[in-house]
């Protein structure tokens, strides 16, 4: 684990800051989520029962079928969507879904990114720079509630 910036080969979307949900596991909106409740629902998934809403998912690989391409868009329409998804390996569907659903995405690193980002850490995803990095506490965004754990920030630095 480190605060180093990790550069990806593939990137899309806007800059986002938020809390990371990290697991060396796959991702499919169809297979893994209860999209009505906004939680991981697949019993065998390492993030089962955890809310993904407004979180930055840091996962190993995109899995399963083509439905995710529509589902990210549908989830975005209800504001029940992750802020960003970061993969070691992406498939075409997740990228297409991110494009339609306006979800920031990074994929393809020289390291196992799930081993570099601590679960629960506040991170910045910057698609323009193609990077993800762990924030230090003095970089956390300010919120009116004082709770920075689920705060997301879109837009330029």
């Amino acid at each position: 684990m480190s605060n180093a910036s990790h550069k990806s080969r593939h990137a899309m979307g806007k800059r986002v800051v938020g809390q990371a949900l990290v697991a060396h596991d796959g991702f499919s909106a169809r297979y893994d989520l209860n999209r009505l409740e906004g939680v991981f629902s697949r019993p065998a998934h390492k993030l089962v029962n955890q809310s993904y809403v407004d979180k930055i998912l840091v996962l190993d690989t995109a899995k399963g079928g083509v439905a995710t391409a529509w589902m990210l868009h549908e989830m975005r329409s209800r504001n029940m969507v992750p802020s960003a998804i970061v993969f070691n390996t992406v498939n075409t569907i997740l990228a297409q879904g991110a494009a339609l659903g306006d979800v920031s995405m990074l994929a393809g690193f020289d390291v196992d990114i799930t081993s570099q980002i601590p679960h629960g850490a506040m991170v910045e995803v910057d698609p323009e720079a193609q990077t993800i990095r762990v924030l230090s506490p003095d970089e956390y965004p300010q919120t009116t509630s004082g709770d920075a754990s689920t705060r997301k920030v879109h837009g330029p630095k």
Partner: protein
Amino acid sequence: MKLNDEEQAMLAGEAGIVAKTAIEHQIKVGKFFHAVDFVPVTQAHIMADTESLGQAGVVWLERLADANEGGVRIPTITDPRGTDFSKASLLGQAEWMLELERRAINAFTRLGVSMTDTCINYQTVLQATRDEHVAFGDTGVVVYSNSVGGARSNFEGGPSALSAGLTGRTPRYGYHLDAHRQATIRIKADWTPKTLDDWGALGGIVGKLAGNYWQVPLLEGLDRAPTSDELKHFGAAMASFGSTALFHLLGITPEAQRLSDVGADKLPVAHRVGEKDVQALKNHYAVEKDIDVVVFSAPQLSIYELRDLATMCEGKQFKKPLLAITSPQVKPDCDRFGYTQRIEEAGGTVLSGMCFYQSYAREMSETKGWKRLATNSAKLVNILGGYGYVPMLASMNECVEAAQTGALQ
């Protein structure tokens, strides 16, 4: 991305707002994958059930259709819908689901899309041929077309497949390129499956070993050429478990007549897979005996599968619902040959134009009390856990027996 004159005109809006919307989406995806340019495609196949689309997706489609700009430029067809309208009450589906389906169908039709509603178009509509560039949007369709037919497609999600239909092209990346079609992992089968569930289980194992979309497994050691239905279950499960879009079977599939054809002569055998591995995968799901429902779906059944099922149903009376789901192209023959009657006389139901997991599976489970589900589809068991089911994998014959007795033996 390098755009030709026609593509630049589309991007500038000279071909209308629909083509502009489509090509902008395609460029966003193409840039993500570092596509250099576009490649023309001859067919598109769209996955767009309304459980996936949701209200937002249907509105997006309606907005495109409302532009009245002529719609798709190439033959563009659809994956299964979220219902069989004639059997919706049996499935416990609510009117709002059906209304959303009707709106989606109306929008697609206005865009010139042909509502084939099938995930086995390679068996029923028109199989893509070797080196034919297509934009297919069901993982089972893609892996079969790429691997068995030698066609060239990425997994194209609904928005991208529709965009390909609307522009007649797709970004040239992934499996459109020779470089991605070489084998990356070499696996030896020590055993050749006999039943469709075992073919699916073997596909699931290979998919898990391959691990991600960009891996291309080569499998050797099979003692015979599989049938189309066997390859259908094998590929669909591989794509489901592993997100695999292309496999090679040594001496069987067209691009791998020799190991060296796909670079596998330079790869060591990384894994050996045998009957015990297949049984272990099935045992992993065999957590209960009693069942609530039997489902044959994912992929839709061919006429030969329905023929086998009809034979197994003879003389039986089911205690539990048995659903057999096929395509609108196969269903008339199933009726005409008397298979539907034989299956339904035993208490089963033949449905058409849908697929079980694409039909509001969570709501069906809650409404109908279906939780423990027996199927011969490895793909289906892989999917349904996330929908709250306890899915179990068994042969078609074992599933039919379970419908009669209420339990898997």
